[in-house]
């Protein structure tokens, strides 16, 4: 019944699609494959701890002109100092609200498709990749040409709003060409009552290039968010990813990184904050295909009330990927007896000369530390806040851009005050 609904939506998509015919075969192929597999179930290994029943029950329609803002959306609420912002509202690019920094070429999906002569990267690792390819309807691509250092971060602000259940499928390509560098922020916000956001982002960092990528997921708690991220790293490139997740009822990140050539370096950091009945799930595949590459993962979750989380991180060191240095850490803080976390760090190593380490821990606030702080005259809330902040400090402190750091630190402090007062 749900699949029939998606079929109807897909037919509409094809009819009103403004993309040229060249795109249609890609969509159709992906959609027919999606129909074969259907949505994942909890019998699937990678989906054991994530229940998609709410997402599967809801009948989403594709976004159209009804979902455009009636008055100009107020993006000032999401102001971040020192960044340039492109605004996408319910899947519709808001050019008049956007500013494009020097050194970055911002392309529409179609322009990017033509620039690549139709040979665009795509993914088919899971049904949501396929669904995004079938329904891709928004997003912008960012290209930094070679030898260009863009200092000012570029942010794509995804605002979701309205009461209708809609599916939005942003597709973003970020290409950092040789010896260039940039910072890309994807920022998801809004008050949408029933949005299903299924985004796919493809990152390519080529020789000697650097990309800092920050994802801020602050959707409304009734949103369903699946974020697919595919990263290719070439020789001596560097990619630093930071995920700050605090929104959505269901949030699932599928993060796949390929270290394809020698000397590539990758850092993935994540801080997830959940409360109520939220479920935040990070699925990571770090694939070491070449020698002398370095990767590290540091993910932390703070869970309040009946919320739950998943960290499923896999590192694969392929045969021949000698001198790999791979680290993986997952630490979780449970602030309530009802909260639950599934942590599963894994390493598969097929090379013999490597350095790999992983660890995981889940616990509550240290009672002795809490007493220590209270015995110095701090009330319970203040003492707990200090400790929660202390738990996340190394991650927030690792942010280099002051505007981003300030924004996230404020968001974090607000979360603590709102979710932990009695």
């Amino acid at each position, binding site marked *: 019944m749900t699949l029939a609904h998606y079929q109807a939506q897909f037919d509409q998509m094809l009819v009103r699609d403004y993309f040229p015919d060249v795109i249609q075969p890609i969509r159709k192929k992906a959609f027919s494959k999606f129909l074969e597999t259907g949505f994942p179930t909890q019998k699937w290994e990678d989906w054991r701890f994530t229940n998609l029943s709410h997402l599967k029950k809801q009948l989403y329609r594709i976004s159209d002109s009804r979902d455009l803002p009636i008055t100009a959306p107020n993006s000032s609420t999401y102001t971040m100092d020192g960044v340039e912002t492109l605004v996408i509202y319910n899947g519709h690019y808001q050019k008049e609200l956007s500013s494009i920094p020097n050194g970055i070429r911002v392309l529409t999906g179609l322009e990017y498709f033509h620039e690549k002569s139709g040979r665009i990267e795509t993914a088919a690792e899971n049904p949501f990749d396929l669904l995004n390819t079938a329904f891709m309807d928004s997003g912008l691509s960012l290209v930094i040409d070679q030898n260009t250092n863009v200092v000012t971060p570029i942010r794509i602000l995804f605002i979701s709003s309205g009461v209708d259940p809609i599916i939005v499928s942003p597709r973003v390509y970020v290409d950092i060409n040789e010896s260039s560098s940039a910072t890309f922020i994807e920022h998801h916000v809004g008050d949408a009552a029933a949005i299903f956001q299924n985004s796919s982002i493809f990152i390519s960092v080529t020789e000697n290039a650097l990309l800092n990528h920050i994802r801020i997921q602050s959707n409304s708690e009734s949103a369903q968010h699946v974020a697919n991220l595919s990263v290719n790293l070439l020789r001596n490139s560097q990619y630093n990813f930071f995920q700050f997740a605090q929104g959505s009822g269901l949030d699932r990140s599928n993060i796949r990184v390929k270290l394809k050539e020698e000397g590539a370096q990758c850092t993935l950091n994540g801080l997830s904050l959940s409360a109520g009945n939220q479920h935040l799930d990070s699925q990571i595949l770090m694939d070491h295909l070449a020698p002398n590459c370095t990767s590290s993962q540091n993910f932390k979750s703070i869970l309040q009330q009946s919320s739950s989380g998943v960290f499923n991180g896999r590192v694969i060191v392929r045969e021949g990927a000698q001198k790999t240095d791979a680290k993986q850490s997952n630490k979780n803080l449970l602030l309530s007896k009802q909260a639950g976390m599934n942590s599963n760090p894994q390493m598969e190593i097929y090379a013999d000369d490597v350095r790999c380490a992983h660890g995981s821990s889940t616990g509550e606030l*240290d*009672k*002795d*530390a809490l*007493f*220590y*702080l*209270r*015995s*110095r*005259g*701090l*009330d*319970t809330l*203040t*003492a707990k806040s*200090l*400790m929660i*902040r*202390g*738990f*996340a*400090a*190394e991650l927030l402190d690792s942010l280099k851009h002051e505007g981003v750091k300030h924004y996230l630190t404020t968001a974090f402090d607000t979360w603590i005050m709102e979710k932990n007062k009695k």
Partner: protein
Amino acid sequence: MLEIKNLHAGVEGKIILHGIDLNIKQGEMHVIMGRNGSGKSTLSNVITGRNGYEVTAGDILYKGESILDWSPEDRALAGIFMSFQYPVVIPGVNNTYFLKAAVNSKRKYNGKKELDAASFLKLIKEKLTEMDMEAEYLQRAVNEGFSGGEKKRNEILQLLCLEPELSIMDETDSGLDIDALKIVAKGINNYHNEKRSFLVITHYQRFLKYVEPDIVHVLIGGKIVKSGGKELAIELEEKGYRWLEPA
């Protein structure tokens, strides 16, 4: 200042203190000596209000008021401070930030204006010098990577900043080398005056070479079995505790 009356208390259903009576007047320094398991730490935990400790009989009065129902923070704000036997490591919590929050919480309670960053820095720098501690300490997380001696010095530093009226020193001397012991004792002595009271809990007589107690108590089996002057400590050092134990 502190009056303990017939205190019976314990932890996890086990009664450890069997009727303690203690009266510490303003400006006095009392010492409690006793072996492991005699109830010394239970006493300090009960006075400071640690969770899990239960008072089954008796009372603790601070400045004439029973504090048994008070939270740990209320006791602290009212002027009670404990130097921990095992200071706790709090990862990610910056020392300066923590201490500034604690100092301001107390100032607020006392109706004083909170200190801004600059005034606090001035205060803490004075105290650091007094405790012979490096300014680098301010950047670190609370007790993280501190040696035993540094942790104890950090306790005294907090004491100096928070200005308590009753300070409980729970085995502050244990694990200290002689130099650290002297610095810690100096900190205590400089702070101690006719308005400020101390309760020093210790295993060893050696600490008493550096501080001047008014009264020494011996705690055995959860009871004070003997009280006296400083000479009692010397006697204990020579004879041990055995002669005081019930036959």
